[in-house]
């Protein structure tokens, strides 16, 4: 089983990103589970969402304390939330930022990977909505989910022009971060 924790701010679509990862992983033939760290959601407040991927049906219902992967949608969260909590040496923390991985002072043995998803999203989608772009980068960094499955999940969730633009951003992020 692989466990993913997504950190974002209210309104950034962290829960939607988790849902799309679950749908895409299932499309790939895995069992999946996605849920938010239920809170009284407010725009801009730190929010957390969780995803589990497994070859067997997922029974575990607790929150995720030792994630294999962490996605950080907003780099300013690094100063307010312990995004590295419970991460493993072989784990990956993916941060949306224009900065280099080395510029973050995060206590973790996990690898830090960065992508300026905001720029990708503005360039392609026309809005700084980074959730879909980041899960494209997630696919590129981890190889856990095929980008085609993510694009399909996004196109089904957001049919038409919006879905197409998001799919384009997903592919761009996947390529930029070196997915293959």
């Amino acid at each position: 089983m692989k466990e993913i924790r997504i950190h974002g701010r209210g309104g950034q679509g962290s829960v939607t990103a988790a849902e799309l990862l679950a749908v895409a992983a299932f499309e790939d033939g895995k069992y999946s589970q996605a849920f938010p760290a239920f809170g009284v959601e407010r725009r801009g407040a730190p929010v957390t969402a969780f995803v589990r991927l497994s070859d067997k049906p997922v029974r575990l219902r607790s929150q995720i304390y030792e994630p294999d992967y962490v996605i950080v949608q907003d780099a300013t969260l690094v100063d307010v939330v312990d995004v590295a909590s419970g991460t493993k040496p072989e784990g990956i923390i993916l941060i949306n930022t224009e900065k280099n991985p080395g510029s973050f002072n995060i206590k973790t043995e996990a690898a830090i990977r960065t992508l300026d998803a905001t720029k990708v999203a503005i360039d392609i989608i026309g809005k700084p909505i980074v959730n879909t772009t980041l899960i494209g980068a997630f696919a590129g960094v981890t190889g856990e989910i095929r980008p085609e499955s993510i694009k399909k999940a996004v196109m089904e969730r957001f049919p038409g022009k919006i879905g197409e633009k998001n799919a384009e951003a997903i592919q761009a992020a996947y390529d930029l971060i070196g997915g293959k």
Partner: protein
Amino acid sequence: MKNRMTVVEGSYAVAHAAKVCRPNVISAYPITPQTHIVEDLSQFVADGEIDCEYMNVESEFSAISALIGASATGARTFSSTTSQGLALMHEALFNASGMRLPIVMTVVNRALSAPINIWNDQQDSISQRDTGWIQLYAEDVQESADMTPQIFKLAEDKDVLLPAMSCMDGFILSHVYEPVILLEQDLTDEFLPGFEPEYILDPGNPMSFGAFADPTTYTEFRYRQEEAMGVALKKIEEIASEFNDIYGRYYGGLVDGYMLDDAEIVIMAMGSVIGTIKDTIDMLRKENISIGLLKVRSFRPFPADAIKAALKNAKLVVTLDKNISIGKNEGALCTEVKACLHNTKLRVPVIGFMLGHGGRDIPIGTIVNIVDKAKAAMRNDSFIESEFADLREDME
């Protein structure tokens, strides 16, 4: 089976299940975390996907009152609520069961105020224990959906005719996305016949429901309700098997065991924590700990015989409760399991743990700690009756 699955939110799967049961009247008042269910249902009605009267009301008390009237006319009725909303219905819940109206309600379990808390525990439905409603508890989204036609069939059975709550843990199941098979309309039509009660409110054939009963007859009304609960005990098993025949899915009838046969320690629980317990048991079994699970699906009627039979080899029973009877320092399952074992030859200790109140997370570590305490109790050097698990020690 996997290729018939789709990843949806728990609330959607349950709203969809309610839809294919073809209710005639739905009335509900939105309240977190039940909201998505009634949003989805009102969308189905607005889109004409279901031929149903959706009654907008100004409170949960009105929702249940509207359904009492509708059910008495012979309509199949559905509602959903949680927490304060269920508490507000309390008075009318007795009316529904006393009038033998098989209203079905999905309770999305949530804590009660004060302090205000929107998260999951099961204090809301447990607090309605004595209202004469059937109460079943689901482990995952698929079971929550599948419970819906099962509970309609149970409630509307002519020898049962009792209102029924299908309980699913708020947020944990209502807001999770996971793969499920959405209930097929054709299979559901085959499984669940139309509701055709013998007695209805009909201007052409006037009669009264729930009218005055003086001391010479009131007792017998209660006796008949209890008798119907006894029938429900058998029907829950039968209906679960019939469901399996048609849909190919089975969750146990009244109770369900996991690694139970040779288990010295048996954990008992209800609802979504079951999955986490199963994973914990798999882990502990690898450490040669003799442990199993008895999942309780039906809390009302209480399956005393099934529980006694399942516990016959147990050396220690550990109950987990997401509720508390304040002043008894015990959850309801603990109290009832102890009580049902008392007049038997089974001399097995029962230790209760209360956990998950107001949405406090239940990781595997919590279950492991509980099992450690239980093992210490088995060595008899620290026997406890019941206590809170995971109490914070840093709060004064």
